[in-house]
């Protein structure tokens, strides 16, 4: 029933949105989406609440060009970016500065020549593509993503889960292009290593 309502939620121009129906119709869907982009349920609930309150404030601007549902999701996506902008800002660093937390290139590579350190040689993974869709792989990723410094988590999530273009992420988080690549590189090095320790590459 809920799905048939949301499927037919394309309002014709001028049709009034129905705030009283937002939570029953879209609450679960908005919550799932938020939860897929942030790490904890409290933050996801907060995002749903902020989104619906923003929508209420912006009711006058809703012209029915998009469906009510699409409009609410647009606001939610905006709020997710804002959430990460706040998260990524280190308390004692300027916004563009690289976070002082977490591993750097020197953790993984010999500073003299840029070769992999012995302890960090990537192992061969036995992981088949299908294994990436398994629950334990998702669990491993969640565990490892949690351990990223806030700035890395923000950039990684916006790039690889929310799939925003690099330029948008740089603009939104106030990160230079050069630092963006350093962050992506460090985040991937760290996640790859953590997933390997978690057993992702082992044959199941």
């Amino acid at each position, binding site marked *: 029933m809920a799905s048939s309502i949301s499927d037919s939620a394309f309002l014709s121009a001028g049709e009034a949105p129905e705030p009283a129906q937002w939570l029953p119709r879209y609450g679960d869907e908005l919550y799932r989406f938020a939860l897929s982009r942030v790490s904890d349920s409290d933050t996801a609930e907060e995002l749903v609440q902020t989104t619906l309150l923003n929508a209420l404030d912006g009711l006058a601007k809703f012209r029915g060009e998009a469906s009510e549902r699409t409009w609410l999701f647009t606001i939610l996506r905006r709020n997710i970016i804002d959430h990460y902008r706040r998260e990524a800002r280190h308390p004692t660093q300027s916004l563009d500065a690289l976070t002082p937390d977490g591993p750097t290139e020197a953790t993984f590579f010999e500073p003299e020549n840029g070769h992999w350190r012995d302890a960090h040689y*990537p192992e061969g993974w036995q992981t088949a593509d299908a294994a990436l869709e398994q629950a334990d792989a998702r669990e491993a990723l969640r565990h490892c993503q949690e351990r990223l410094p806030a700035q890395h988590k923000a950039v990684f999530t916006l790039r690889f889960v929310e799939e925003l273009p690099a330029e948008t992420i740089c603009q939104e988080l106030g990160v230079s292009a050069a630092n963006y690549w350093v962050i992506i590189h460090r985040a991937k090095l760290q996640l790859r290593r953590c997933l390997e320790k978690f057993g992702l590459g082992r044959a199941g």
Partner: protein
Amino acid sequence: MALKISLSCQEATLLVEERADAPLPLKAAVALTVHLLYCPYCKRYAAQSSMVAQLALFAGQHTAGNAEITLPGAARTRIQQRLDAAQGGGGKPVPGGV
């Protein structure tokens, strides 16, 4: 990034990340291809890095589309109260609402 033909592993893995986003300039693309031919570790890194990206995408899609996940009741009640309060006149009074 200096455009030289011989890359360190640190440089090569950074280029792997950049390559996933947009095609590299020719010189860098050649240098990376050569490096990946003789460096098994960076070759593994390249394959695994794209697996990590794929895993992140799958995991997000899985949660976003998982009908078993629902907005917890307590949050639903709280949010509805905030919405009612924000709509002002005619809305139900919110106990302890700010």
